[in-house]
């Protein structure tokens, strides 16, 4: 058995956390080859080669792979697929765009958001916004899966696997990239931060969201948001936590002005410690919170920022 693992690469840089956690998740499945596809991604390949348990790194460095377009990256993965029993990627937005395409091209049913690899054919995955866990056995000869990384620890950087450069696969020429609108931030990544501070509709406005951000910065935390906060324009889309946003499992998750809808809980209920700040004592978020504070967030969030 052997694994081809598609590394998460953004603008040529390796997302070490996501990739290293995916390596841990599939360690038991056999020899791991990492595929780095990107533009100017040779540093990413060098970093991927340090991950413990990786036996080889393939580097496809070309502008064609620079913007994560699904068609060319899927074509590349399919061209390499033959020699692997498992094709894997961390369950990022990028991989969720690409791997189902790979899967259909190989006539295989994709296994999305795997939370546990039980054996080479059997996997656990959440369904119904995490309200049920399904254990399935894949009957396909090849397996294509995305791994929900939040529950795995990152593989150490102790290795030095060989790197092989790849020729470019064909460009299907179907899509072109126009632009990225990405906010640069010095804050930790939402999906790998030790502490996440999230705000919901209760925060009330874009200006007021600053008090959530101030607490996050004091705690060296990432900032999250509920869908209602994003829909209302208080926070950018990439801060959304939940069934259809990001899944996080930090040491500490602080939810302020968030009611605790199941779709939100789906993205954060595996956090180690949950703190809820809400002025409604009946808010469902208190049912999953380790520590609840029934209060107006405009009083307690600044006070908390002051005191920690």
């Amino acid at each position: 058995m052997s694994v081809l693992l598609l590394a998460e690469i953004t603008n040529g840089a390796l997302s070490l956390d996501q990739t290293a956690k995916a390596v841990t998740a599939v360690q038991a499945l056999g020899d791991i080859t990492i595929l780095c596809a990107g533009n100017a991604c040779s540093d990413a390949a060098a970093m991927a080669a340090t991950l413990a348990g990786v036996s080889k790194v393939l580097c496809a460095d070309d502008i064609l792979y620079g913007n994560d377009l699904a068609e060319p990256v899927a074509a590349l993965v399919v061209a390499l697929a033959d020699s692997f029993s498992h094709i894997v990627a961390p369950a990022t937005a990028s991989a969720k765009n690409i791997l189902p395409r790979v899967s259909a091209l190989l006539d295989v049913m994709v296994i999305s958001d795997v939370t546990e690899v039980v054996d080479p054919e059997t996997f656990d995955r959440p369904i119904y916004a995490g309200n049920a866990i399904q254990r399935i056995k894949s009957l396909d000869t090849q397996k294509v899966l995305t791994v929900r990384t939040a529950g795995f620890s990152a593989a150490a950087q102790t290795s030095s696997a060989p790197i092989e450069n790849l020729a470019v696969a064909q460009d299907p020429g179907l899509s072109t990239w126009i632009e990225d609108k990405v906010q640069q931030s010095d804050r930790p990544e939402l999906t790998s931060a030790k502490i996440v501070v999230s705000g919901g509709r209760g925060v009330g406005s874009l200006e007021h969201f600053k008090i959530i951000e101030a607490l996050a910065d004091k705690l060296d935390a990432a900032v999250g948001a509920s869908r209602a906060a994003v829909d209302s324009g208080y926070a950018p889309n990439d801060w959304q936590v939940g069934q259809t946003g990001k899944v996080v499992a930090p040491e500490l998750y602080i939810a302020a002005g968030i009611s605790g809808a199941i779709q939100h809980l789906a993205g954060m209920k595996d956090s180690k410690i949950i703190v809820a700040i809400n002025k409604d004592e009946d808010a469902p978020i208190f049912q999953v919170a380790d520590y609840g504070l029934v209060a107006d967030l405009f009083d307690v969030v600044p006070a908390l920022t002051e005191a920690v």
Partner: protein
Amino acid sequence: MRVLVPVKRVIDYNVKVRVKSDGSGVDLSNVKMSMNPFDEIAVEEAIRLKEAGKVTEIVVVSIGVKQAQETLRTALAMGADRAILIEASADVHNDIEPLSVAKLLAKIVAQENPDLVLCGKQAIDNDMNATGQMLSALLGWSQATFASEVALEDGAAVVTREVDGGLQKIKVKLPAIVSVDLRLNEPRYATLPSIMKAKKKPLTIQTPEELGVEITPRHELISTSEPPQRSAGVIVKDVNELIAKLKDEAGVI
């Protein structure tokens, strides 16, 4: 131009899911079922494109049990023109896998020749997030997933996509598959007169056998279980007590 919108009948997003005690799945008997929320958004987008004069016909298609006719009628009442039901199962608990759904949809695409397929980003029951990408692969079409903005141009669609770092704008050649995200639009409610009118709109029924598609599942369900439950902790009285707990009891700050 013609748009095809696949709509799935799923458990209503407000219903609390109950895992059956024998581990065979989630209890779907006598629970409220609705159109997958993402698919409502896809239908709405198609209607807006039609209202803007860019689209001439909207065909909706659903794959599943015969009760999915209700879902199709809802889409027709919103403003779709025609519906196709692919009756693929008699049991509401039997979910058709995205690979099979994509193969069936590929056949419908061959029949209907749409220029654009607008589907949901994910079905909120199986949470697969795969069908659109798979259909696109099978057809060799371009794909734009997780759309929060769609603009049609000559022979192409310009799509803003919600990605992990923010937003990405791409241009895809038509015909294309676009999967829609939550912030694309706010779907309308069907009015009573339009619900009446929808009863007369055409709805045809086909089967996987007629379409020549094999839908044997590739995933064998071993078990369905409840996730570990969290229990409510304590209510603290003020910020100082909270900080003390986080420092001394939990050790997280």
